[in-house]
């Protein structure tokens, strides 16, 4: 599943980042690298963008960008 589709406050692990889009590199530079744990904090009042917590800091990104990130939820 992709980062934009996981529920709030569940910690997931990034499995891959789609580099075909223009922003894949930037997302990875910001620390969204495979293996990193990530958590969705909340969505903005209109549902987009979303706020995530990665490497212990907070980042806002739009759902379209978040959909480029594959994650797995460890159960």
């Amino acid at each position, binding site marked *: 599943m992709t980062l934009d589709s996981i529920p709030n406050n569940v910690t997931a692990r990034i499995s891959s980042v789609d*580099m075909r889009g*223009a*922003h894949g*590199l*930037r*997302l*990875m*530079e*910001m*620390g969204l*690298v*495979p*293996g*990193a744990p990530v958590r969705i*904090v*909340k969505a*903005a*009042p*209109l*549902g*987009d*963008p979303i*706020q995530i*917590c990665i*490497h*212990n*800091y*907070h*980042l*806002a*990104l*739009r759902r379209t*960008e978040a959909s480029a990130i594959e994650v797995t939820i460890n159960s």
Partner: protein
Amino acid sequence: MSAVLNTFSISERAPLSLPRTARPLTVIVAGNPNAGKTSLFNSLTGLRQKVANYPGVTVESKSGNWFVSGNGPAIRLVDLPGLYSLDATSLDEKIASEILLDASATKADAIIVVADATNLVRNLYLATQLIETGRPIVLALTMVDLAERAKLKIDPAKLSDELGVPVVPIVAKQRRGLEQLGQAVLDVAGRGGRPSIDVKAARDSSARNRHSTLIQRYARIERIVSEAVETRTQDGPDISERIDRFVTHKFLGPVILLLVMLLVFQAIFSWASLPMTLIDHLFSGLGDVVRANLPPGVFTDLLTDGIIAGVGGVIAFLPQILLLFLFISLLEDSGYMARAAFLMDRLMRAVGLHGKAFVPLLSSFACAVPGIMGTRTIEHLKDRIATIMIAPFMSCSARLPVYTLIIAAFFSGKTVLGVVSLGAVIIMAMYLLGIAVAIVVASILKRTILNAPPPPFVMEMPPYRLPNFGNVAQALLTRSTVFLKRAGTVILAISILLWALMAFPRSSAPQSKTAEGAVQIENSFAGRAGRLIEPAIKPLGFDWKIGIGLISSFAARETIISTLSIVYNVGEGADNKSASLVDTLRNARRADGTPIWTPLTGVSLMIFFLLACQCMSTVAVVRRETNSWRWPLFMMGYMLVLAYVASLVTFQGGRLLGFA
């Protein structure tokens, strides 16, 4: 040489002082946005800062002198725009990485890389990228006090061993660690050195290569951090996340944003008016004193009506600019600005703009000049320019006197549905029309000349922090000097030019005092221009006297009132409430006895004033913010066309519908 550089560590011995004959050292300060770079730079240089533009672009560079030891030579310290990586996405980042990578261009002797101790993993990404280039680097670990409070135990020596560069923990506000930083910088700069790896090759590597080096880099950083930093796992969300529960709450969030913006709006709309009136009185008083003590003539007129009035007009902007930037600095430094952009992004994106465009656009309702200066928080150039291009459509406070004059003359005392005054409805319609036009223009611009793949909205939400008073004061000082120097000079030059257009050629037919003014302005270049453009503006319902008003109001929109007072012989000093000007407008007749001014003319003029870029200060500040004449000229051009067409449609359409 490079072998030495690659293996040195903080324990290595190096000459402690530099040869006296050496040229002043240049040291660059680089780091992620929000990493405490500005605080460090301000602490090291104090108030002695120079702001310059990089050639041909809007990005600013700050430099200042850093006296490392009491009697030693000063180091030239250069502050770069914040960047997350050397592979730039925004213009600010591109410039910064350009300077960091091109050693020969800047002749930097050392680089201080600023890294936020509370957010070490991401901050070390840029640091390791830079360290890999082999340049002389010192890592300044900022916010160590906050890291301690967050129960992060960082071992600087270990970090230094792993990274291969000196690491100095600092707290800029308390000046902790600044001396050690100075010593470390002198040490690495004394060693000299050249990039040990091929910088060009590092940048031009293919996407696949970048992808794998990126993953390796992060893996290495995580290993280093896990060894050098002792983390105690936190229980539950941190304090910022708890504050966010209110500040970006579904319902509370927008309410808080509304209240904050109301405060900003109130400040620039109403608190600024007192100092602005004072400045206005001060300069008109000064003009009167000069006029009373000098013999009448061209020189005195130039001094009073041209120069003193022009300088006063420039300085009158300062209260609004200072207040807006006070709020912008506080909002940025506290971390709230990112939350405002987070809340507004979805709405702003509907018109193709960034969430950060919201605050500057709202401020433009008070005045577009500080609003346009406020767009520099928007990182991507095309987004920033699109925001600048539509900012003047927000109905500013200078348009209000024009609206109220026309409402007083033609729509006073009338109501809609028996309760709401027609005047209020018209003013509200003007505000809404401005917003509607801005939305349409923004969408068109973003699809045509400013078309670009939408930049990523990947925005850090920095932790809430108390704003640093010194940083805020420094920002205010910088913005006001930059405005006075760069935009102020252009505004002054144009106001002197406009004065000359109305003062020459000289008429020598002294009658009464007021008639003299009317005769002078009628025969002046501006008066002739008014007659010249009469055929063009006639279809809008305007005569040549209004034409003069349109020309003179380029100085500032409200100037049309004093100009109309002069051409209609009402006497100077008439304001929009003056009954005589209102009566004169109502009773003005053409040769055939038909009234010049009808309610329809009034509406047509209001729409023209709403849409035309009748404001040289806006033009000057756009020139300054985009660093070229291309955008301000484009702005004037398209706004004029739009205003003309809209007024034409209003007047001719209104006549067809039977309004007069």
